[in-house]
């Protein structure tokens, strides 16, 4: 694990807001030369702190008006059912996120759909037919906000 100084954290915060900024522009903003800014970013990429880049799209403009979070409990637990479930759920195109959790549920899923009728189709045909699936709870996403986290 590498230690980040205040300049690294400022760079990381800026990139988590907009990864399209060049090392030159970031350098000017934080009082670094272009190569110095580039080296710092490269170091954070190599350490795995910057795990990659994600593209932010307007889901509704692309026809996906509904995002639903599902809490899923497995009906039967055991090594085999967990593997089968994970493999099958990760292959569903509408499922963006699969997280194994501890608590009231075993898995958290983020599912996108065109509308509520499309969501019902995904739920009935794809989710409820997964191997080992038990109780499912759905919450429709109304708003989401990513926070900078403890970088300040």
């Amino acid at each position, binding site marked *: 694990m590498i230690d980040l100084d205040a300049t690294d954290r400022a760079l990381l915060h800026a990139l988590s807001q907009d990864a399209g900024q060049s090392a030159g522009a970031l350098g000017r903003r934080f009082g670094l030369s272009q190569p110095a800014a580039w080296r710092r970013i490269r170091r954070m990429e190599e350490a795995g702190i910057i795990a990659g*880049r994600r*593209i932010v799209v307007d889901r509704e403009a692309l*026809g996906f008006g509904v995002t639903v979070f599902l809490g899923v409990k497995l009906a039967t637990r055991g090594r085999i059912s967990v593997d089968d479930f*994970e493999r099958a759920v990760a292959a569903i195109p509408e499922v963006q996120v699969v997280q194994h959790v501890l608590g009231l549920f075993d898995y958290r899923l983020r599912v996108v759909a065109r509308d509520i009728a499309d969501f019902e189709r995904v739920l009935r045909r794809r989710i409820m037919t997964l191997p080992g699936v038990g109780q499912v709870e759905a919450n429709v996403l109304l708003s*989401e906000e*990513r926070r900078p986290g403890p970088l300040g």
Partner: protein
Amino acid sequence: MQIDDTDRRLLRHLMADPGLATAELAARAGVTPATCWRRLERLRAAGVIRGTAAVIDWRALGWEVEVSLRFTLDKTAPRAFDDFIAAAREVPEVIGIETFLGRVDLRLNVIARDMRHYKEVYRSRILTLPHIADIEALMLVSTIRDTEALPI
């Protein structure tokens, strides 16, 4: 704006691999680099592509614990949502805030350095948030899939 099959093809490749250079993206989508560039500019100008953002791996930074806290709020307080969200934004360990329609009103994504630190954050900064009626915690064990890709 009208989005045609070529746009969708470009977006599909770009969402699958957001770090792709324009030339490589053009090759994968089967269009010329000039067409690719022009189409991406158009999608950006129309706000379909909002931008790119660096993905931070908090574990690589030493934040080992991630918990999804699901809240129901006391809706008899007229400003329950606004007050709660404003206060949650002040907590540095909160990396995401989501609101829902369903049994759960709101979710906070909270990170901590270890379990001891989590306990401290939970007691001093989470339980003190206003208008909480109920809290459920889901502790993240592992992320099996995490993508922004839409099935277009």
